[in-house]
């Protein structure tokens, strides 16, 4: 069966001196009802990937022409603006990282929900309003009907994010892209939102692209996980496989660096150095300056994403497993 | 856009739009001060009699009847006026002797505070003989009795103002909605914008030639006003600078009309008192020789030609061309820069430190002149004379002041040199208001005192025949000129710009509109605006 959404060789650059190769050859697929999580540290290109799918890259950004985002058999990146608008919000919807800034501060919740509906469906004002109330109830906002008249600043962060989700769900999209939907929220609220997302996805049967920098956040939700580093996917596998048998040294280190409640350790294992700048990726493997296993080959030649039994990985260790330092 | 214009029905058509830089203050004759206000008042109100075109203040035959159809001298202290019985106020009421007596009371009332009050106080009393006869009594016999009796007062309607408390007259709404007995009726005053009059067809004397007169405020911007004059949106501009006068020579539409005879002269007045300490003489100008040296050194003719144009006239004393003594055989100081220079050297003024400015006993020949910034003409003269002095080694710093500050500095004696202008009054009696001991505290800002001058002026004022008076005035002026208490600069005749379609145009030196009722527009040359009625 053909996947619902297929991203092939996605490359997005931002003009500058030197140009920033924010997303640099990303490939993945998303099947109906599936949840794919993209994780990675700040600046690795998660958000740009998500935006590129919907063609939301602004100047000075540019999606390279060879990139393909195939949805329902058409390449979204070559669609006309009007056609693309028909997909946005209706077929593929998006929930953003910062609910506080992603909602228009001067429009009521009602306007912001119903305008999506009215943009994609022929629906009367009253019907749209009724639907908006339903949506708010769906995302468990109490006294939904009254909240319709509220402005974003009158809502708490958690509620704002619920409104964002309601907007995204309004046209019952086939794909929901959630870009770090909980980073701006407190842990307790984060838990609520994550649970809500999981439940809604199950109920509505949509596919979800979940983006996060926090492995903990995606653990409970994702079917598959793609780990990004330096604008590329460096490892992709089922959730269980990633957590149990991480193949890429970076994935491994990331898992170890997170302080965990369930596994008390006296000393965290840190990854040396910091995430490099997207404008100046190092030659060879992009992780090599921080990798404990790196050898000459890693410094000079760039590994490809290689399929293995457990998943795909972008590391020369798959060729030369003996090089792994113990 | 549909207009709704009533056409002017008869021969007596024509509209004059007069551009004015400022607007009238108030249209209540005893209080009106500006030239603009006075030009309006002179049409709405009328005097008992008026001066003739030559502005002679001493010859009774040159006066023209207005409200008074005739007058007789009863004795040396009394003049009796017979009022024209057909004279009517614009509301229809007849003009009576009561109105005249009332007017006199108003003008002399300190609560009204009329600027003309000191002159009116020369009159001992006004008696109503009968409804159309009124007698003016004087405390002493002198030449200008008739002048003082008629010239300073425009007659006011007692039936409208008699009941108003004197203190409130000035601010009474009448002042913005006047009712007079003059050739023109007041129509409306749009604040800051325009004042409109219409000819009174029932006027008891010769019917005015123009149907409407409109004063239109063009703001203080002279070039804008000139633009409007030459572009035809106004008909009269009250003052034309020489550049614009030149332009009229080639203009088909506008010509320059002189104010004849001119009532003005301007002068650089020296302060005889030290501005820092008025009890002491001025460190420079108390010296008659220095004043004279400076006076002869100024090339006034060149300055006047530059500022006033080719027909500029150099003032030759405290006398304006309108005064009947103008041009008499009084002494004048010549222009002789070399002589000025020589005299300065003889007085010990030398440039000993090489800074370009003469000095003596460590004191530099340096002083400042105050000039009102409102007068473009005086500002220009000041700058030219400044340069002339500079070439002599005399430093004159120019201080431009707004008019009020300027006057205040003058009144309190805080100046070295004051650039004054005197005018409006066609009578030589005004000399006594400026150049005598009695005028100290008045307009003798420089505190100039010469007992001989005082004596000559007093005898001139008291003279009973013209020849004696002329002789005494000539003496006084010669004495003053010899002392050089001031450098007289210009008494050039000012010119107004007037549209060429008007006929029979003349302008009397003391008032723009004194002769305006005689102006006419021939039928053939009428513009659309001449055909509008009210």
């Amino acid at each position, binding site marked *: 069966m053909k996947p619902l959404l297929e991203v092939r060789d996605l490359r997005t650059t931002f003009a500058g001196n030197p140009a920033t190769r924010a997303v640099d050859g990303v490939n993945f697929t998303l099947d109906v009802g599936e949840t794919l999580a993209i994780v990675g540290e700040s600046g690795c290109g998660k958000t740009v990937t998500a935006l590129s799918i919907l063609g939301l890259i602004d100047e000075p950004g540019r999606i390279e022409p060879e990139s393909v985002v195939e949805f329902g058999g058409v390449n979204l990146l070559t669609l006309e603006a009007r056609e693309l608008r028909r997909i946005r919000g209706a077929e593929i919807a998006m929930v953003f990282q910062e609910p506080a800034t992603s909602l228009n501060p001067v429009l009521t919740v009602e306007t912001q929900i119903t305008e999506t509906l009215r943009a994609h469906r022929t629906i009367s004002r009253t019907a749209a309003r009724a639907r908006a109330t339903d949506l708010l109830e769906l995302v468990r906002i109490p006294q939904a009907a009254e909240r319709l008249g509220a402005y974003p600043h009158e809502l*708490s962060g958690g509620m704002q994010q619920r409104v964002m989700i309601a907007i995204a769900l309004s046209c019952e999209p086939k794909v929901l892209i959630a870009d770090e939907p909980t980073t701006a929220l*407190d*842990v307790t609220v984060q838990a*609520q939102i994550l649970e809500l997302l999981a439940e809604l996805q199950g109920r509505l049967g949509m596919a979800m692209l979940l983006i996060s*920098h926090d492995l903990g956040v995606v653990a409970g939700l994702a079917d598959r996980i793609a780990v990004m580093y330096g604008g590329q996917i460096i490892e992709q596998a089922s959730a*269980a496989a990633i957590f149990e048998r991480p193949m890429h040294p970076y994935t491994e280190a*990331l898992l170890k660096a997170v*302080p965990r409640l369930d596994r*008390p350790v006296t000393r965290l294992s840190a990854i040396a150095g*910091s995430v490099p700048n997207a404008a100046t990726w190092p030659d060879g493997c992009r992780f090599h300056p921080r990798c404990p296993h790196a050898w000459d080959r890693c410094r000079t030649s760039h590994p490809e994403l290689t399929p293995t039994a457990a998943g795909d990985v972008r590391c020369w260790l798959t060729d030369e497993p003996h090089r792994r330092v113990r | 856009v549909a207009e709704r214009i009533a056409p002017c029905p008869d021969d007596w058509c024509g509209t004059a739009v007069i551009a004015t830089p400022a607007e009238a203050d108030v249209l209540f004759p005893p209080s009106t001060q500006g030239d603009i206000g006075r030009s309006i008042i002179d049409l709405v109100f009328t005097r008992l009699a008026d001066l003739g075109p030559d502005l002679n203040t001493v010859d009774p035959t040159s006066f023209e009847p207005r409200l008074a159809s005739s007058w007789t001298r009863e004795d040396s202290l009394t003049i009796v006026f017979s009022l024209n019985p057909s004279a009517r106020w614009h509301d229809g009421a007849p003009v009576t002797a009561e109105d005249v007596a009332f007017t006199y009371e108003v003008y002399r009332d300190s609560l009204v505070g009329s600027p003309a009050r000191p002159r009116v106080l020369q009159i001992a009393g006004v008696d109503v003989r009968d409804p159309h006869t009124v007698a003016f009594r004087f405390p002493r016999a002198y030449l200008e009795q008739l002048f003082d009796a008629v010239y300073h007062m425009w007659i006011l309607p007692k039936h409208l103002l008699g009941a108003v408390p004197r203190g409130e007259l000035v601010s009474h709404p009448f002042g913005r909605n006047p009712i007079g007995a003059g050739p023109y009726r007041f129509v409306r005053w749009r604040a800051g914008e325009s004042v409109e009059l219409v000819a009174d067809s029932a006027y008891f004397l010769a019917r005015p030639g123009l149907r409407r007169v409109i004063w239109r405020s063009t703001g203080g911007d002279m070039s804008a006003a000139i633009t409007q004059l030459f572009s035809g949106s106004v008909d009269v501009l009250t003052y034309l600078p020489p550049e614009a006068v030149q332009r009229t020579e080639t203009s088909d539409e506008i010509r320059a009309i002189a104010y004849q005879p001119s009532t003005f002269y301007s002068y650089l007045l020296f302060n005889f008192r030290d501005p820092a300490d008025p009890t002491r003489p001025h460190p420079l100008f108390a010296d008659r020789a220095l004043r004279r040296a400076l006076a002869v050194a100024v090339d006034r003719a060149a300055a006047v030609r530059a500022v006033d144009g080719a027909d500029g006239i150099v003032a030759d004393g405290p006398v304006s061309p309108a005064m009947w003594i103008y041009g008499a055989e009084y002494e004048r100081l010549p222009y002789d820069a070399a002589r000025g220079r020589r005299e300065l050297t003889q007085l010990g003024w030398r440039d000993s430190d090489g800074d370009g400015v003469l000095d003596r006993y460590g004191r530099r020949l340096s002083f400042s002149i105050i000039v009102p910034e409102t007068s473009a003409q005086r500002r220009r003269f000041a700058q030219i004379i400044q340069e002339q002095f500079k070439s002599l080694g005399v430093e004159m710093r120019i201080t431009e002041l707004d008019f009020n500050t300027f006057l205040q500095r003058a009144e309190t004696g805080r100046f070295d040199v004051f650039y004054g202008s005197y005018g409006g009054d066609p009578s030589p009696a005004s000399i006594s208001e400026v150049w005598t001991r009695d005028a100290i505290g008045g307009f003798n800002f420089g505190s100039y005192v010469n007992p001989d001058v005082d004596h000559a002026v007093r005898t001139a004022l008291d003279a009973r025949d013209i020849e004696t008076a002329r002789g005494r005035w000539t003496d006084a002026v010669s004495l003053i000129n010899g002392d050089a208490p001031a450098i007289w600069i210009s008494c050039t005749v000012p010119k107004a710009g007037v549209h060429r379609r008007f006929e029979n145009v003349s302008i009397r030196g003391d008032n723009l509109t004194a002769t305006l009722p005689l102006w006419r527009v021939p039928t053939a040359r009428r513009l659309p605006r001449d055909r509008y009625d009210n």
Partner: protein
Amino acid sequence: MNGQPLLAVDRLSKTFRSGGGLFGRARTIRAVHEVSFAIARGESLGLVGESGSGKTTLGRLILRLLTANSGTVHFDGTDVLTADRRTLRALRRRMQIVFQDSAGSLNPRMTIGSAVREPMTVHRLARRSELDTRVRTLFGEVGLDPILVDRYPHELSGGQRQRVGIARALSVEPKFVVLDEPVSALDVSVQAQVLNLLADLRERRSLTYLFIAHDLAVVRHLADRVAVMYFGKLVEIAPTPRLFAAPTHPYTTTLLAAIPVPDPRRARQRSMAGEPVGRSAGPDPAPAEPQPGSQPADACPFYPRCPHPAKDERCRREVPLLREIGVGRLVACHYADPSAPDRPPA
């Protein structure tokens, strides 16, 4: 070394007025309300709570960077809040703070070298000639390359900037450091580096910490005891292992349960078991964050969100006070069970 705590905080309160000009009506926010606790020498106290609960305010009150409304703070026996200028200056040599926002806590117009140098000049801790060496030493100690001294803050990565903040705090050789969310703005990989550094420094310099964080897992690494703050009040204090093993206050329980575990199997188990993750079932009764003034003053502040089965009218009418329920364990809940057996973490 005596038995007296290094830092003793007693009934410390702070209210803010916000809004309102000359004529408008101001709102008061009780940011910190009657908070009392003590920190022993060499101890590290963790302070957790959600956003807006007053953690930062409390930290700043202790250093007297804000003026308290009431209460006392004693540092090594000295009354901090009433100290005169000279004493305060001396105190500030011994108490330091590291901020959450590493970019905002460094003057953008100052090189990081001078940022670290400045405290030493203020307190005249070194001669001019020695300053540079001292700065370099400090840089080395916090793991910064000394060649960076002339860089400006924006030319550094977040982790490096946070190290500069730490170096600046250490430059005056303090005894006590308030760490106000020092790692929450950092990427996980870098966060681990900084946490390790803080642990090392504490050991090397025998420092006392007040470690503020909203992430319980992070606190666990560095704190001997943990204090939980909710809505301006301390709701629970306990030694770290015991708190994680057996949280007693329902808020602490909620907090612990909400922390995502990077392990898919456990995560799934947990959510299927229907553990209290906030109020997972049914709609929220109230906005998730505490809203000042939205409830009666004498109610338990956690009342609206409390999942405790025993919650009742009393919680609405009576504010629970912090009471001792075990050795070194305090809790502010009417129904917290002191005898509950320590549970293993979920």
